């Protein structure tokens, strides 16, 4: 009897240690470092910079007067402080929705076109390039969103609720995959977003270029895909639920350096 118990104990021991060693083998940090040297997100950044300065849309205007929160036309450091509450728009906006607002108000490009559009296509693809441009100018900045603002705080709390809210046919929540250390989907390690470091890692590494699909994804795109992967209803582009989750992640990761734009497998 005692022998059998011992045998069981040994089995449990193996089962517990196996994932740990597998994870060491699946260390992609070195690979990611190599990729980061020639991150093709730079190509999108160049396109975005061009778009920022080019007069476009029905108003034939540039985005150079766009206020990203630090004053009209100030790009440096702006992304690190988003999402934030904007008086003129009357809502909390992230990078995408703020740029979309500028495109509508300055250039006359209707937001509806982007909201109803598809990822990686048309105006939404152009918006992604602009995001690449804006975040690159906050590279290495510490995440610093203003949680003292009541509207931002409200969004943060809504985001936290959304994070733990189980939904869809598989009864998943964001927390199902992102509330423990050392979890992964296939070879992709998942940050534990309930911790400060994990939240900053998640928030600060998107938008990113995905090498395997040669695509540049913004945070709106990433989060939309999280919902899709959970078999939940797909969120509307720029809707409050995405901004709330973004505010939650950014707020939790406040004070930690962002690594924008990221590069992923």
């Amino acid at each position: 009897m005692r022998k059998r118990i011992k045998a069981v104990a040994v089995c449990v021991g193996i089962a517990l240690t196996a994932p740990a060693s597998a994870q060491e083998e699946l260390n992609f940090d070195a690979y990611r470092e190599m990729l980061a040297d020639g991150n093709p997100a730079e190509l999108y950044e160049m396109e975005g910079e061009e778009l920022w300065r080019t007069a476009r849309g029905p108003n034939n205007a540039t985005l150079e007067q766009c206020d990203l929160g630090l004053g009209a036309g100030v790009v440096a450091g702006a992304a690190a402080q988003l999402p934030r509450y904007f008086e003129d728009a009357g809502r909390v906006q992230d990078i995408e929705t703020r740029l979309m607002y500028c495109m509508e108000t300055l250039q006359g490009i209707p937001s509806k076109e982007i909201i109803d559009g598809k990822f990686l296509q048309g105006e939404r693809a152009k918006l992604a390039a602009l995001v690449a441009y804006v975040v690159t100018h906050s590279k290495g900045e510490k995440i610093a969103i203003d949680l003292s603002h009541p509207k931002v705080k409200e969004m943060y709390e809504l985001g936290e609720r959304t994070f733990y809210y189980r939904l869809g046919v598989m009864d998943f929540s964001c927390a199902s995959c992102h509330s423990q250390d050392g979890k992964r989907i296939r070879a992709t390690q998942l940050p534990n977003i309930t911790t400060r470091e994990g939240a900053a890692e998640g928030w600060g590494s998107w938008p990113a270029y995905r090498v395997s699909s040669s695509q540049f994804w913004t945070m709106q795109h990433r989060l939309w895909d999280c919902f899709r992967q959970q078999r939940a209803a797909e969120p509307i582009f720029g809707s409050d639920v995405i901004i709330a989750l973004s505010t939650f992640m950014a707020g939790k990761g406040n004070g930690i350096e962002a690594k924008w734009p990221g590069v992923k497998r």
Partner: protein
Amino acid sequence: MASPMRIRAAAKDGVTEVRVLMSHVMETGQRKDSAGEVIPAHFITELTAKHNDKLVLSAEFGPSVSTNPYLAFKFKGGEKGDKITVSWVDNKGDSRTDEAQIA
């Protein structure tokens, strides 16, 4: 017209390291679109790099190279301020040439 390349070159201890990021679809000709039609091949076939007017690298590229290729190489010589010129030609006859100075 093709999009610009991003070229960075740095000289150190008599060796220059050049890093080039190209913007190209690099379509293999093996893929099909959602309608089942073959997407025509479109990839870089030749690439050359010059230090001032001297050829330092000549390469043949093919469909196995990834989208938005990244290339890094080193050559002996090169001084700060020298000109590096990188050119490519693809199978559709498109081409692109960009320049950078050694830092």
